[in-house]
C-alpha cells in the first residue's frame, strides 16, 4: 500500500501539475450509508486522504426519554435502538432492570428469551450479508437473498409477539405472553431455511473471485488496535481474539449452552464477513439446543411483580453480546419508578469511531465496503 506523505496541506506538486485534494460528501442520503450517516471524504484522485464521520441525524434522546418514563414504558424505546435485532436490546434492558431490582425470571422465560435473542442475531446478520453484498455491487441479488430469511424470521416474531421489528415482547421479570402452540415446529422450519440461506450466501459471495479480491487484506486490524479503539463483537473476533461476552462474562442461560466462538485471523473485511457467517450458524445451534431443553410448560412472567415497579437504589453495568458487539446498559436507580440514569453502551457507536483510521489510505470504493463491514445501525449509533 502506498504510504502518503504526512505533510499534505491542500496542494501537492506532481510533475509540474498542481493537484488539489477534493472533498466528497457521502451521505446522509446515499445508497451505502445504511441509514442517515454522513462522512466527508477528502480524496486525492481515488485515494482517501482523510475522512470525517458525522453522526446524530437519528438522535432521539433515548437516555433522556428513559429517565422520564416508567421502567415498563421505556421498553419500547429500547428495541428501537438496534432496530435490526430489537429483542437483543430488550433483553439487555430487561436484564439491567432485573439486576437492579433483584427480580427472578422463570426458566421457561429464560429459554424463550435466548431463542428470541439468537433469532434476532441471525436476522441482523442476514441484513449485514445482504447490505454488504449490495455495497460491493452485486446489484440487489444478495439483498434479496438476505430479505428472504429475514421475512421468515419476522413472520415468526409476528406469530409470537404480534409485531415484526419492534416486538416489545420482554418484560422485566419475564415475557409478555407465552409462545403459540406450533412454535417449535415453525421455529425448526425457520432454522432449516436459515441454514439454506447461509449456504446460498456462501455460494453467491464467498467463493466469488471478485468478492475475495475486494475483501481480502483490506483494512487489516491487529488485536492491539482493536482493543485500543474499543471494537467489540465480530469486529474484534475477526482479529483472532476469542472474546464473546456470552462466554467471558455470561448472562442468562448461556453457560449451559454449547456453541463455538468463531474467530478470524487478520481482522480484514473478509474475516469480518466470515465471522458473522459462522456466528449465524452457531446461533442456529443455540436455538436448537434451547428448543430441545426448554421446559414444555410453566410460567413465563414472575408472578410476584408489583403493579408499579419501584427499583431500589443501586447501580449496575450489565453487559450483553449484542449483534454488533458489546451492547451494555449502565443503569442507576434511586428507588423511584423511573430510572435515574440509563446509559447505552452502543457497539456500533464504538466500532464506528474507528472508521477514520480504517479508511485513510484506501480507495473510495474500499471506504464504502469498510463502512459496510462495520455493520452499523444508525438507531443504535445515534441513540
Amino acid at each position, binding site marked *: 500500500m502506498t504510504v502518503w506523505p504526512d505533510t499534505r496541506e491542500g496542494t501537492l506538486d506532481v510533475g509540474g501539475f498542481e493537484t488539489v485534494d477534493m472533498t466528497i460528501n457521502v451521505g446522509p442520503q446515499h445508497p451505502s450509508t445504511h441509514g442517515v450517516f454522513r462522512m466527508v471524504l477528502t480524496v486525492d484522485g*481515488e485515494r482517501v486522504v482523510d475522512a470525517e464521520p458525522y453522526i446524530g441525524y437519528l438522535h432521539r434522546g433515548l437516555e433522556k426519554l428513559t429517565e422520564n418514563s416508567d421502567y415498563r414504558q421505556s421498553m419500547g424505546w429500547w428495541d428501537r435502538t438496534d432496530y435490526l435485532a430489537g429483542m437483543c436490546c430488550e433483553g439487555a434492558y430487561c436484564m439491567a432492570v432485573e439486576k437492579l431490582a433483584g427480580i427472578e425470571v422463570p426458566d421457561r422465560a429464560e429459554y424463550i428469551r435466548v431463542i428470541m435473542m439468537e433469532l434476532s442475531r441471525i436476522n441482523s446478520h442476514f441484513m449485514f450479508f445482504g447490505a454488504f453484498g449490495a455495497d460491493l455491487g452485486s446489484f440487489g441479488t444478495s439483498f434479496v437473498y438476505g430479505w428472504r430469511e429475514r421475512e421468515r424470521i419476522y413472520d415468526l416474531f409476528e406469530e409470537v409477539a404480534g409485531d415484526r421489528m419492534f416486538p416489545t415482547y420482554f418484560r422485566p421479570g419475564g415475557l409478555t405472553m407465552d409462545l403459540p402452540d406450533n412454535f417449535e415446529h415453525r421455529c425448526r422450519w425457520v432454522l432449516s431455511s436459515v441454514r439454506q440461506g447461509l449456504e446460498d450466501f456462501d455460494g453467491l459471495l464467498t467463493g466469488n473471485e471478485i468478492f*475475495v479480491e475486494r475483501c481480502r487484506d483490506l483494512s487489516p486490524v491487529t488485536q492491539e488496535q482493536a482493543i485500543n479503539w474499543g471494537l467489540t463483537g465480530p469486529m474484534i473476533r475477526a482479529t483472532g481474539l476469542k472474546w464473546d461476552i456470552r462466554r467471558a462474562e455470561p448472562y442468562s442461560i448461556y453457560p449451559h449452552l454449547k456453541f463455538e466462538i468463531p474467530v478470524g485471523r487478520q481482522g480484514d473485511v473478509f474475516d469480518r464477513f466470515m465471522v458473522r*457467517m459462522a456466528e449465524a450458524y452457531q446461533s442456529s445451534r443455540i436455538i436448537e439446543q434451547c428448543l430441545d431443553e426448554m421446559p414444555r410448560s410453566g410460567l413465563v412472567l414472575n408472578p410476584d411483580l408489583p403493579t408499579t415497579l419501584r427499583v431500589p437504589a443501586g447501580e449496575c453495568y450489565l453487559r450483553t453480546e449484542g449483534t454488533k458487539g458489546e451492547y451494555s446498559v449502565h443503569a442507576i436507580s434511586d428507588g423511584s419508578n423511573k430510572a435515574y440514569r440509563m446509559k447505552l453502551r452502543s457497539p456500533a457507536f464504538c466500532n464506528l469511531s474507528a472508521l477514520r483510521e480504517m479508511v485513510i489510505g484506501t480507495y473510495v470504493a474500499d471506504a464504502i465496503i469498510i463502512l459496510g463491514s462495520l455493520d452499523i445501525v444508525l438507531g443504535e449509533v445515534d441513540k
Partner: protein
Amino acid sequence: MDFADPFFGISWLDALIRLVIVVGVMTLVVMYLIYGERKLLGRFQQRKGPSYTGPAGLFQSFADAIKLVGKEDLRPRNADRWVFEFAPFAAFIPVFVILVTLPFAQDWGVRNLGLGLFFVFAVLGLNIVGILMAGLGSGNKYALLGGVRAAAQMISYEIPLVISLLAVAMVAGTLNLNEIVLLQENRPFVLIQPLAFVIFFTAMLSELHRAPFDIPVAESEISGGYFIEYSGIRWSMFQLTEYAALWAFSIFGAVVFLGGWAFPFGLEWGWGWQLFLTIFKSFFLIFLVMWMRATVPRLRIDQLMNFCWKVLIEVSFLLIIVNGFFLYYGWSETILGLVNWAGAIVFIGLVYSRGIRRSRAREYVGTYRNPEAATP
C-alpha cells in the same frame, strides 16, 4: 435489391427512410431490453419483476418512457450549460451510428461498408466524449469521479477489444462485416478464436459499464456516476444509449464471432431464418451480460486497470503473434483452433484459481458447516 440500391432511387429519401427505421426499431428493442432485464433480474433474485402494467407487465417500459418524458428537465445551477445539455446526444449518436453498419441478414442493413470493422472501432471511441462531457459539465463531484473513471476505463479497454477483433480479421482476411459473416458459413469464428472471444466479451462488459465493470456508474459508491444530475428526457437518453450500445455490441459480437446470419443453414433457409439467427445470438449474449450483472460484485478501479494493462493486453498481443505464425506458415485451421482453446481454458483457469487460492475460504466454510469442528 442490393444494399447499395436506394429506396425509390432517391438517395436522400433513402437515407432518411433507413435512419427512421433504425431509430424506431432501436427504441422498441431498447424498451423491451429494459423490460427483459427487469424480468430476468427478477427471476435471478426470486421475485417477479414488472407484472402490473399490461399483460405480464409488457407495457411497463412504455409507462416509464411516458413518465420520463413528462418529468421536469432539471439543470444544476453550477452546471456548464451547453456541455451539460449536449452530453446525452454526444453519448448517443456514436452508438446509433454503429447500428447503421451492422448486417442483420444477408441483404438487410443500412450500409454495407468495406471497412465495417474499422468503422465500428473508430466510432466507438467517440462515445467517451459524451460521457466525459456529462461528468465534467454537471458540476457535481460524483459525476466528475464517474466521468473520469469512465474515460480511464473505456480508453484502456478499447485496446484489447480492438486487438481481439483484429485477430479475427487476420483469420478472416477482410474488414467487411458481411464478408466476415459469409466466411463463417460452415463454422463460427468462436470455434477457432475462443480466446479472442473471451477477451472481446470482457472488454465489451467494460465498455458497456456492465457488472463486474460498472465502476463509472457504481450505484453504491458514487450513486450513478456521470448521469447523477440528469433527469427526465436527458436521463432517458443515457438509458437509451446504454441499452442501444448493449444491443449493438451483442449483434456485433454475434456477427464477428458467432456466425451472424450465416452459420447454420443461413444461406439455404432464407431471410427469416437469417434474421432469427442474428437476433437469437445477440440476445444470447445479452442474456449472458444480464446474468453476470445479477451475480457478480464490482471490481475496484485499480484492479480493473491492472487486469486490462497487465493481463488482457498481453494476452491479446500474444494471440495476434500466434495467429501471425499460423497464417504465415499456412498451418491448419484445426490446430489454430486447438491452440486457441487451450489458451482460453488456461486463461480462465488462472483467473478463477487466483480467487480460490487467495480466499482460504474453505477453512472458515468448513467451520460453520460442521458444528463439531474446532474453530480456526
